[in-house]
């Protein structure tokens, strides 16, 4: 079905899709903001969380940071190609971005499995007891898990859009994916120091 005329109007001068993505990002900032605030309040009250944070692997987190920052760079190139209506180049760089997302998720899976192995190690449950009733690990899994879901969502969106622009349609949607992807990137920039570096 055709879009309504309302969709093509632009009383503010900003493209409707861009405007909507900004509202999505604002509502997401508030969700992640609430989560990070809760974490900070606990972290400031419990010095012992520094010791629990020793479990997280800083090199793995650092690699993921570099991967995500690189992916954002690719997203920018894809956007600039899309503005020039260079569908083939935009397609290629969107898939580079998706590839970076995939590497990020692989590193994340490695981290998750090593954490779970550590927590459920066959040592009479000493590690489990140490972490039970403290929320560091719970926050770690919740925050990075929610972020990981956003990474997956961004990847799916870029896959769909990449095939649309290959057919020469919806070039403006590359920008929307890019804006969202930068947001996902920035959330990681907050999570990395809070969960990995501060020990």
């Amino acid at each position, binding site marked *: *079905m*055709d*879009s*309504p*005329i*309302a*969709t093509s*109007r*632009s*009383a*503010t001068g*900003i493209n*409707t899709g861009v*405007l*909507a993505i900004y*509202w*999505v990002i*604002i*509502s*997401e*900032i*508030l*969700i*992640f*903001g*609430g*989560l990070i*605030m*809760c974490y900070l*309040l*606990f972290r400031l009250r419990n010095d012992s969380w520094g010791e629990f944070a020793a479990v997280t692997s800083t090199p793995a987190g650092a690699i993921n940071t570099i991967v995500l920052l690189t992916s954002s760079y690719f997203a920018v190139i894809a956007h600039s190609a899309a503005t020039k209506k260079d569908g083939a180049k935009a397609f290629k760089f969107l898939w580079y971005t998706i590839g970076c997302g995939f590497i990020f998720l692989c590193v994340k899976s490695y981290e998750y499995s090593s954490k779970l192995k550590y927590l459920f190690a066959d040592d009479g449950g000493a590690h489990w007891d140490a972490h*039970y*009733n*403290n*929320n560091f690990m*719970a926050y770690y899994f*919740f925050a990075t898990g*929610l972020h990981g879901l956003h990474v997956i969502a961004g990847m799916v969106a870029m896959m769909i859009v990449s095939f649309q622009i290959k057919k020469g349609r919806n070039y403006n949607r590359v920008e929307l994916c890019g804006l969202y992807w930068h947001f996902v990137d920035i959330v990681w920039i907050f999570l990395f120091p809070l969960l990995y570096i501060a020990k």
Partner: protein
Amino acid sequence: MSGDHHGPTSFWSKYVFSLDHKVIGMQYMFTGMFMAIIGGYFAYAFRMQLAFPGQEVPGYGIVTSHDYNSLVTNHGTIMIFWVAMPVLIAALGNFLIPLMIGADDMVFPRLNRLSYQIFLVSAIILIASFFVQGGGFGGAWTSYPPLSSNPEYNLTPLGAPLWLTAVALEIVAFLLGGINFLTTVMNARTKGMKMYDIPMVVWMIIIATLLFMASVGPLVAGAVMLLFDQTLNTSFFSVDGGDPLLWQHLFWFFGHPEVYVVLLPAMGIVCEIITTFSRKKLFGYKEILYMTFATGILSFFVWAHHQFVAGIDPRMATVFSITTLLISIPIGVLCFCFIATLWGGSITFSVPMLWALAFIGEFLLGGVTGIYLGSSGTDIFFHDTTFVVAHFHYTFFPIAIIGTFAGITYWFPKMFGRMMDETLGKVHFWGTIIPFNCLFIPLFLLGMGGQHRRIYNYENFPDLAGPEMQNMRIFATLSLVALLAFQLPFLYNLFRSMFRGEKAEKNPWKANTLEWVAPSPPPHGNFGHQFPEVFRGPYEFSHPDREDDFWPQSEPGPRGEIKEH
């Protein structure tokens, strides 16, 4: 302008999977009404238990203590999340926004449909939660942990997570709808409609959407954390390791702005109705707008007044008392602006006008009793008594019920192209307003007498079981029965007028805003081939230069403002 809007033809694509904002609005409205019937039935069951403890309730059966908790919890949850929000914001917002800003639809029709579908799924999950093993969740609509987080305490191992999932999905539905509303009003306004030409009800819905979006984010994170506490045995909100008070902060940081989220659309409806039926320009359009923004901002700094007895720092209690009392200033200005609009007007007591006037009066009582509860000193005495219950029903009932009836009776001709019956409307009006006051004034008195809420059977409390208190409870319950019975004339009137009512013309109330330019009911695409253009503000009534006492926004000509000296 393409203008070639051939509406969908099959039943399914026209009414069930429609992309048309008007149909989606109707879907929200009828789902909301259906949920209101469930919520009202729950109130009937638990009020009967309080009036006639231990006796079989006609139409329900014996109310056990477990049932009682579940009924009270789900009555509150349904009335706020599945009645007030969908009807006031989603239904009226969806129906009115594109019509009032002169657009053919929302900017994202498919997002709009998705929002309704998620909302419908959430409603089904909530209803399903009443029938699972252990019954529906009974830990109050505020869902405080550790009661809500530990199945050993709340005894609803399935009901509690289902309830929480339903609420979370409902929030997601409204976030999606909210993004659509905001983008539509910002970008899809018709030619000539400037910021101060937007009708007040649209402004109010937009500000409400902003408040909702800004306040609900942390609660979304919190709801997932609580769900993990319930199902994965984490301890975010448990006493050892976590912090139960954190949930209260997250909940009320959302919960208090939520009051204004539903209040503002109702205020907007009142603005539209009192100007039309007193044939006067809205007094202080900009002042109302700025005061609404002030209310919105202040509403983020009052949440801890719900927690005065929860163990917060007493110094903090003073701060929150002050902010809470401050917020009555902008709301007071709004009420004075409404009264000034009415002053000297040529008033018609039509059914929508009666509802709008009742809103102002009844909400005022709710607001004034809020002063007692906002002051931390008196709140310590009143906390958790039925004084609180009566107070928030004096705010929520005018908002969710009176405001909704005002809106439905006012826009009914536009929605269905037919007029409602005035006599039946007045019967319904008085039959609702009088029992409402008879129902909640006793609760104020009982609360001052020390009657705690959330108690299943007062016979076990010698101080509260005396005949004078029990008689008041019986009086309140019988008023509720009358109140519910008087909704039947409304339902009859609604459905009869929908098919048999007198045909309505385009602009039966002689109002100015753009929705009255469209045919009644508006076709798919709303305005046909020619979209209206806006030349002036929405409330130019009784202008001295004009013969007619109204001046539609879309009529070409000067802006028509009178400069004051």
